[in-house]
C-alpha cells in the first residue's frame, strides 16, 4: 500500500513537469517562423476570408495562451484533437507510429544494458589491465560518435556496400523477421552511446564497491570470486546504473528523432519532425506530451527499482 501511495505522490509531483514541457513546446512552435495555414492551403494565395474561416475553425485566431488552455482542456479528457493539416485524429496518428518507436527504443535500451553492464564488469575486475584500457577507448569512441553519422556509415557499409540489409524499411509488419533484421542497424546506431555511458558508469560503480569491506568479508568466507562479483558486488553496483538506465529513456527518445530520420523508420521521432515542419501543433503537442509522460514514468520505475535493489531504501513513510 505504501508503495502505491509513494507512486501516487510521485505522479502528482510530475504534473507540473508535464505542464511545463507542453507549454514550452507550444510556444516554441509558434515562435518558429511559418504558419500552419500556409501548409494547409499548399502555400497558394487564397482569399483572406477563406483563411480567416480556416483560422477560426482551428481556433488559430485566439490568443496563444487561450489556445494552450483549450488544448489542455481537451487533453484532460484524453481528447487530443485532429490535425488541421491532415485532418486525421492525433491519437490514432500517434498510436500508429508508437509501436515502431517502442520497438526501436526497447531494442536500443536492451543493447545498451547488455553491452554496457558486462563490459563495465570486465573493465572493473581487470582494472588497469588491457581489457580496461580497450573498453575505455571503445567507450570514448562510442560517446564521441554522433549517432546520425554512425547511422549513415552503417547504412553505407552494410546496406550500400555489402548489401546485407535494406537501406529503407521493408514493407512488412513490425513483428516480422524482415523488419527485425532491418532494426539491427538503427538499434546499434541508437544504443552505442548509451552502452558506452552505461559501461563507464558500471565500471566506476563497481570499482567503488570492490573496495567496500563487505567484499573482503565475502572472500574471507571462502566464496568463489565468481560469487563475490556476481552476487555481492554486482547488485550493489547496479544501484547507480539503474538511475542512468532510467535517464537513458529520455536520451533514447531524443536520439530516436534523428535515427528514425536516417533510417526512414516509421516511428514517433519522424512523426515529430514532420509535424514540426508542417506546424502541425496538435500532433507536436501530442508527441511531446507522450515523451514527457514516458520520461516521468521511467524515473518512477527507477525509484521503484531502487527499493527492490537496496533494502535500505523503502518508501514506507
Amino acid at each position: 500500500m505504501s508503495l502505491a501511495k509513494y507512486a501516487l505522490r510521485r505522479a502528482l509531483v510530475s504534473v507540473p513537469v508535464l505542464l511545463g514541457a507542453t507549454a514550452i513546446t507550444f510556444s516554441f512552435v509558434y515562435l518558429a517562423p511559418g504558419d500552419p495555414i500556409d501548409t494547409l492551403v499548399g502555400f497558394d494565395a487564397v482569399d483572406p476570408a477563406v483563411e480567416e474561416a480556416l483560422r477560426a475553425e482551428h481556433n488559430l485566431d485566439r490568443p496563444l495562451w487561450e489556445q494552450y488552455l483549450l488544448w489542455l482542456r481537451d487533453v484532460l479528457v484524453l481528447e487530443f484533437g485532429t490535425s488541421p493539416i491532415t485532418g486525421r485524429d492525433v491519437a490514432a496518428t500517434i498510436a500508429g507510429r508508437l509501436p515502431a518507436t517502442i520497438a526501436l527504443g526497447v531494442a536500443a535500451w536492451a543493447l545498451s544494458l547488455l553491452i554496457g553492464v558486462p563490459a563495465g564488469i570486465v573493465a572493473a575486475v581487470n582494472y588497469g589491465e588491457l581489457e580496461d584500457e580497450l573498453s575505455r577507448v571503445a567507450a570514448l569512441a562510442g560517446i564521441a560518435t554522433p549517432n546520425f553519422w554512425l547511422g549513415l556509415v552503417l547504412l553505407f557499409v552494410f546496406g550500400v556496400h555489402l548489401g546485407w540489409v535494406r537501406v529503407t524499411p521493408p514493407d512488412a509488419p513490425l513483428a516480422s523477421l524482415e523488419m527485425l533484421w532491418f532494426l539491427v542497424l538503427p538499434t546499434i546506431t541508437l544504443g552505442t552511446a548509451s552502452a558506452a555511458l552505461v559501461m563507464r558508469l558500471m565500471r566506476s560503480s563497481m570499482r567503488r564497491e570492490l573496495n567496500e569491506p563487505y567484499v573482503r568479508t565475502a572472500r574471507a568466507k571462502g566464496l568463489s570470486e565468481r560469487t563475490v562479483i556476481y552476487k555481492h558486488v554486482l547488485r550493489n553496483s547496479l544501484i547507480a546504473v539503474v538511475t542512468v538506465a532510467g535517464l537513458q529513456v529520455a536520451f533514447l527518445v531524443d536520439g530516436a528523432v534523428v535515427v528514425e530520420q536516417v533510417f526512414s523508420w516509421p516511428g514517433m521521432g519522424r512523426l515529430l519532425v514532420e509535424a514540426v515542419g508542417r506546424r502541425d501543433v496538435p500532433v507536436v503537442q501530442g508527441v511531446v506530451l507522450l515523451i514527457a509522460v514516458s520520461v516521468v514514468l521511467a524515473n518512477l520505475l527507477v525509484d521503484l527499482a531502487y527499493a527492490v535493489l537496496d533494502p535500505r531504501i523503502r518508501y514506507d513513510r
Partner: protein
Amino acid sequence: MALLEVENLSVQFYTEDGVVRAVDGLSYEIERGETVGVVGESGAGKSVAALSLLRLIDDPGEIVDGSIRFRGRDVLSFSSDELRRFRGNDVAIAFQDPEAALNPVYTVGEQVAETIRAHGVASGDAARERAISLLERVGIPDAATRYSHYPHEFSGGMVQRAVLAMALSCEPDLLVLDEPTTGLDVTIQAQVLELLEELSSSFDTAIQLVTHDLGVVARRCDRVVVMYAGRAIERATVEDLFYDPSHPYTAGLMASIPRIGDGADRLPTIPGRMADPVDPPTGCPFHPRCPYAEPVCETHRPGLVDVETGEPVADATAPDHLAACHEHTGDLDGGLEYEVLIDDETTASGGGTDP
C-alpha cells in the same frame, strides 16, 4: 606441531609515498584451542598480519617473505581452490566495523547461510536451519525472524554477534577476531567477551584476538604478542606480560590503562607517534619515544631475545618470554628503570615511567 605457525612474515604495501613494511619479520604460533592476543597501537600491523593469514592482502600490498603453516600445510602455496576451501572453513575472520563488513543488500541470515552452503556443510533449508541456530547461539533473540532482517536493521551489538555467528558457521579451528569489542559500549563489550569465552570452549576454537585494548587481553588471552611498527617486540604468556613487561613500549601501554582510584588527573600517555611506516627510525623503531633510549638504540636494532638469557631463540615460535630491547642483551647502560606495582585483585598493573 602447533595449529598455526607464522614465521618471519613480511608484508609490504607499495604506496605513492614509498614502500611500507606493514609487517616485518613477524613470528608466532597458536596452539589448538588457545587464545592469543595481538596488541599494539593503530598502525602497528596487527590487522595486516591477521589478513595475511587468509591471504586477504590486496593490491598494492603483498606478502614478500616468510611462511604461514596451518596444521603443517603451507598456506602461502595454496591454489585458489585450496584457498577457497581454507577460508571460512579452517580459519575464519570477524572483521572490525561489523556493520560495514556485512553486505547491505542481503539479509543477515542469508549471509550466514551462504558460508554454510559454500563449504558444503549443509544446503537449502538445512543451511537456513543451521544459520538460525547459530544466530540463537550467539544470543540473537528471535533468531528465526532476525534471519530475514537486513544489517541496517540490527543494532551495533547485534551486528557484532551476527558477524561472529557467520565466522563460526563452519566451526573453524582458528577464529581471527579483529577488534571485536571496538565501538561497542561497555556492557555489550562484556557480553561479547563472555560469548567468546563460551564459544571458544564449546567449539574448541583457537582465537587470534587482535586488539588495542589490554583489558580485553587480560581477560581473554592465554598468550600475547605485542606489536610495534610491524614487528613483534614482546611475546609472553598473559601472566608474564602483565607481571613482568619487558619492553618499555609494553610498560608504556600498561601505564596508559585508566585505573579507578589512582588519583591521577591525567592519563599517562606514550609521547610521540607511531613510527613513520615509509621511513622508520634507524635502530630500535621505538627509540624516539622511549624514555630509556641510549645511543646504541639509535644505531642497532634489537632482536627478539629470551628475557632471562638474553639469547636469541632459535625456534622462532618457541613459547618463552621474549622481548626486543637492548636491555636484555646487556647493551643498555642505564637499564629499564620502571617498576611494576602489583595491586591485589587486579591482574593489570603498569609501571610509572620515572627513572
